[in-house]
């Protein structure tokens, strides 16, 4: 019988949660690496027993852990992330040049075909790759050396490269997103990158349609149609049908906020903005079914009205329905961070997300009903799911 394994990275350790295909009764292992921040864990699609975890603290820096037995035991692998050549500078919060400094690994993206190959998205923004199972990591410097790199600025959470999507039909095509530099694509395996931000509008920028500077929170695609991208951005949700060449807003009827920014003429204007949030994911079997979790902003970062709701669009965006059965509908003030949602690929697609309040919610029926797998973990930073035969 099929089973699923949920990999949860939290502020104070890693947890591995398993259930059979019914997804009702769960076993929970952990905490692994207790006391350390686990920004992300992800299993290899080519070998589900191979799992990588990013382990860090402000005290002792970055470690990379690897499991070869499905998360039961772990061994530290290489943790040297050295930028290639001259590091150069990006812009600091005050606009002054600031040297690139490695801080942590935010996201690990194992190759679809080779368990020993993994991409790592790091802060300060860069992409690294291992081809020896994590023993050594080499920067793919084409991204950091992009001609706009010296103008990139960190978002409030740091200048993190948090999203890496490898095109399943063309592994030389990779998408990356950086807060708050924007979204980029390579078509030559990482040698050269181009911004893919046409159609994005960020009223907090001096030029709201600038090529760089957009605060992208997360991106997702469906393997059957990798040229279609979905983006959760600071303030709204977007879609591209041509590999990021052009984006259009699909926030539709998502909950909204009002924000005051200067307009293009420098006059104060109240913007009606819909669809703030961090996570976005696509149904395993329905490429036009998309999930987001609206969050109130600009700084509150909890569910609107204290009601935790997942919104689902079955039309590829634009039209959204709230899903709340089993989720708290009062007094809920948690956040759902950018890497904390995932889907399984069982016949009835399971959807999972974790909160900063330590809950991991699971829906075994594509979002119709929800229940907590666990309620009291440390703040959840990331959730990934493996569907096991």
């Amino acid at each position, binding site marked *: 019988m099929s089973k699923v394994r949920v990999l949860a990275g939290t502020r104070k350790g890693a947890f591995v949660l398993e259930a059979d295909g019914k997804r009702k009764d769960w076993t929970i292992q952990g905490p692994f690496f207790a006391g350390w921040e686990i920004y992300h864990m992800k299993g290899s699609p080519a070998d589900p027993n191979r799992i990588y975890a990013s382990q860090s603290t*402000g*005290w002792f*820096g970055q470690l990379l852990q690897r499991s070869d037995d499905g998360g039961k035991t772990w061994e*530290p692998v290489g943790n*040297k992330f050295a930028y290639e050549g001259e590091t150069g500078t990006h812009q600091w919060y005050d606009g002054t040049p600031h040297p690139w400094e490695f801080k942590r690994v935010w996201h690990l993206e194992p190759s679809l075909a080779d368990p020993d190959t993994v991409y790592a998205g790091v802060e300060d923004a860069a992409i690294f790759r291992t081809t020896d199972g994590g023993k050594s990591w080499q920067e793919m410097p084409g991204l950091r050396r992009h001609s706009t790199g010296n103008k990139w600025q960190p978002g409030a959470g740091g200048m993190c490269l948090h999203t890496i999507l490898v095109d399943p039909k063309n592994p030389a095509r990779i998408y990356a997103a950086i807060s708050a530099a924007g979204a980029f694509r390579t078509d030559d395996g990482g040698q050269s990158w181009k911004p893919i931000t046409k159609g994005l509008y960020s009223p907090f920028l001096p030029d709201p349609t600038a090529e760089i500077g957009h605060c992208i929170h997360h991106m997702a695609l469906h393997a059957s149609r990798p040229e279609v991208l979905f983006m959760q951005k600071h303030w709204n949700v977007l879609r591209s049908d041509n590999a990021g060449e052009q984006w259009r807003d699909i926030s539709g009827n998502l909950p909204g906020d009002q924000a005051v920014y200067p307009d293009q003429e420098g006059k104060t204007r109240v913007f009606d903005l819909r669809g703030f949030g961090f996570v976005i994911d696509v149904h395993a079997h329905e490429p036009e079914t998309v999930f987001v979790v609206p969050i109130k902003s600009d700084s509150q970062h909890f569910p609107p009205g204290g009601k935790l709701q997942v919104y689902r669009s079955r039309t590829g965006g634009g039209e959204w329905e709230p899903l709340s059965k089993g989720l708290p509908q009062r007094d809920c003030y948690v956040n759902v961070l950018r890497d904390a949602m995932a889907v399984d690929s069982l016949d009835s697609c399971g959807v999972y997300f974790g909160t900063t309040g330590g809950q991991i919610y699971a829906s075994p029926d594509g979002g119709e009903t929800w229940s907590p797998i666990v309620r009291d973990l440390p703040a959840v930073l990331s959730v990934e799911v493996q569907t096991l035969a």
Partner: protein
Amino acid sequence: MIRVVLPAHLRTLARVSGEVVVEVAGPVTQRSILDALERQYPVLCGAIRDHVTLRRRPFVRFFACSQDLSHEPPEAPLPAAVAEGREPFLIVGAIAGGAR
């Protein structure tokens, strides 16, 4: 024989309990102790000082003989009591003040 006390997280990482002992050839300094420690426990590379710059990580402190030696030059000789193994070289995680 140099005695080194690691903070709890690094003892877990190095899979040791209590003090560890390293051999240092030549002058006993912060750098020579850390070089020996990292040779003996490669998993500690990067956890105490930066891989590339070899600068002490900001929230790590070095104490010995009731003194805070964190801001001493890495090549400065350490007290004779450390070099002679009578006192340990302490690697300490700075107090966080409750953050996280």
